[in-house]
């Protein structure tokens, strides 16, 4: 498999992994879906996330000499985490695509009012 | 401790003394550690540049640890100055001594 493809796959695996790990956290699940996840669903995302990161490392090792592959992977993790953080900040709904099996919260007027009150409250 | 009265009267000075001890004292102590380390590892048969590299790497981390430890410390910084300068000098002397025992 050509190196460029392996590199692209490494990046994708790391972004997916970071995305899943982020979505497993309550605060970010709320940003993406408007609600917290059931513990089972969150655990699944954590497992997927961790696995994806390991797969990313294996893909990197397949492309390059070990001394460079490790560096590529560590830096890809950094880039992936940044990408996920920026997505959560500006386009959190895009991350829904990482876990399409999870349903979105139904927005009742009370729920909308509650969440907008939370957003404009004081410092965390 | 009698030093507590000085501490409360000149907190800025104490802080400066602490930072100085961490940076300058830490540097001297790291130098001594590197010199002793290089000489001892060379004597033990390690190749010179390998010994230089390993000692330098550990010495830099040691300087960092000393800096953090001294700034966070509670005792009179004069002890830190004494310990680091004295210890550094002793270690450096050890390094020179070991060097002299090698042909």
């Amino acid at each position: 498999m050509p190196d460029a493809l392996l590199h692209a796959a490494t990046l994708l695996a790391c972004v997916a992994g970071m995305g899943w790990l982020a979505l497993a956290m309550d605060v970010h699940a709320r940003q993406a879906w408007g609600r917290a996840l059931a513990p089972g669903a969150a655990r699944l995302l954590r497992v997927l996330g961790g696995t994806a990161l390991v797969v990313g490392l294996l893909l990197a090792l397949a492309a390059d000499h070990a001394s460079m592959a490790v560096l590529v992977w560590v830096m890809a993790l950094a880039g992936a985490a940044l990408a996920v953080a920026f997505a959560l900040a500006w386009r959190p709904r895009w991350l829904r695509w990482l876990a399409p099996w999870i349903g979105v919260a139904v927005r009742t007027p009370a729920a909308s009012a509650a969440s907008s009150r939370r957003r404009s409250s004081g410092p965390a | 401790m009698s030093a507590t009265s000085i501490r409360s009267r000149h907190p800025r000075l104490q802080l400066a003394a602490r930072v100085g001890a961490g940076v300058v004292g830490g540097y001297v102590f790291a130098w001594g550690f590197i010199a002793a380390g290089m000489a001892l590892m060379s004597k033990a048969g390690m190749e010179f540049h390998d010994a230089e590299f390993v000692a330098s790497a550990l010495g830099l981390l040691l300087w960092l640890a000393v800096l953090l430890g001294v700034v966070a410390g509670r005792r009179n910084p004069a002890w830190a100055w004494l310990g680091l300068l004295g210890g550094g000098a002793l270690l450096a002397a050890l390094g020179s001594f070991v060097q002299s025992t090698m042909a």
Partner: protein
Amino acid sequence: MFQNFRQAMAWLHTWFGLVLGFVLMAAFFFGALSVFDREIDRWALPATRFEPQPMPSFERVLRPAFERLQPDPALVEAMRPRVDGPMPERFDRIAYWSAYTTHRDPVLAIYAGWEVPGARDPDEQLYALGTIDPRDGSALRDDQLKIGSGFFYPMHYSLTVDWKNLGFWIVGLAAMAMLAALVSGVVMHRRLFRELFTFRPDRARLRSVLDLHNLTGVVALPFHFFFAFTGLLIFASTYYFPVGHTQLHDLHELHEKHEAAALGLPHGRSGVPAGLANVDAMVAEAQRRWEARGMAGDVGFLVLQHVGDANGYVSVYRAGTDRIALVGQGIHFKADTGELLREDPPATPAARVAEFLTGLHLQHFRHWLLRWLYVLGGLSGAACIATGFLFFVEKRKRQHAARGSQGARIVDALAVAAVTGMVLATLGILVANRVLPEDLAGRGDWERWAFWGTWLASLVHAAWRSAPVARGLPNPAWREQAWAIALLAVAAPVLNWITTGDHLLRTLGQGYWPVAGVDLSLLAAAMIAGSVAVRLGRKARAAAAAAALRETAAGQGEAVHA
């Protein structure tokens, strides 16, 4: 002293970060640019815009070029007082000839060193360097400033302040401060994992700035730590802890003698003149041996020691293009007969670690993805430090305004200079490089003046416009300098087009990525700076409108009460 460890670390983080953060910004930003230093050189020196070349033939290309080299007359004069007897007209006691190349170098830098007969310190030598076109050996101009590898690169490790190595020391202390700031930052940041992805730009400025500071610091924490640490380590034995050159100099000499004896590589000159066998044949033999070990490769480094002496030897090193180590697998030949003296054995574990740590920092490998990820890491580091300054100012702006203190104002002006000013200085030298006449005497010095002058102008402008900060308001200089960046970052590629004819369509069409890459990066920077300037302008207008509204409401209130 401090209530607890965390408090002590918070103090350390704030004040070491503030004092040395300005230096660190430069180290990270110019370090990020240095990843593509040779590409920037191509942009700045249009005569060198051709494809990278492998190490050329010694017999056909290198030998005549080496034989042409002689030390700079100014250096010869400078050494005269330290020599007993007359200085020779022509220097022939060659200590070494060497050439180093990587997969990114079109032109080749060659180096020579000479022993000086009668020198009081026998170790003191005279040097020269030349730049040649490897395709035909012709000498290229040496007096042009290599803006990438000769300016931005040394800027990041010494601020180009070479007087008594002061710049090295300042950057070294800043690197140590970086390590301290990273560790103390982790101690302070209790919710490190929970807030790993937290960035809330819609919140109050203080919160969103802190979020960004934490984000850029934590996601690239291994990068920041390792680059600061390996940077210190690379210069440790030469500048920061030169134990082997001072206190343990004897041990160093002892090692050299033992190594020479054990491995059959002569230590010094014998004094007996001898010829030079065919070096191309030696290089071919070295490449054959590497291939036999399953690591066929290019020549990265070629050194000839004691040329013309019976003790002379030739060392051929393999370029580490496909791995972390810079060069390796050295193979050494006797210079006068061409017989093999030794093949370097596999490195010791300590040496392998050293190769890895220095190689990961100096990056001579071919891996374009990793290089761009390094740029991302470097810019994240710069962003982390910049947001640190912004947080400091933001937090204290209102308190200082209430007490009439100028502290926040001063830090803010310095922050503008450190962030937008630094970028402006970078653009300033690139623009000057295109605008100045080609044949201007001391062109490199003028370019350097353009750099420092632009930076100084940015500081003056920032200080002049900083009065609002003392009232708790933002400094308009941020927006104004962002516009200036957008302007210059567009001007530079346009000037490149006008002065060299290499516009983007042409360079992209030819696939000449060094120049296309720099032009594209400049345009991207212009877009980012422009959008930041627009947003800052919108915020300023909104704030002004709100303030005007408050005043009219207050005025009406007074009118009613009156």
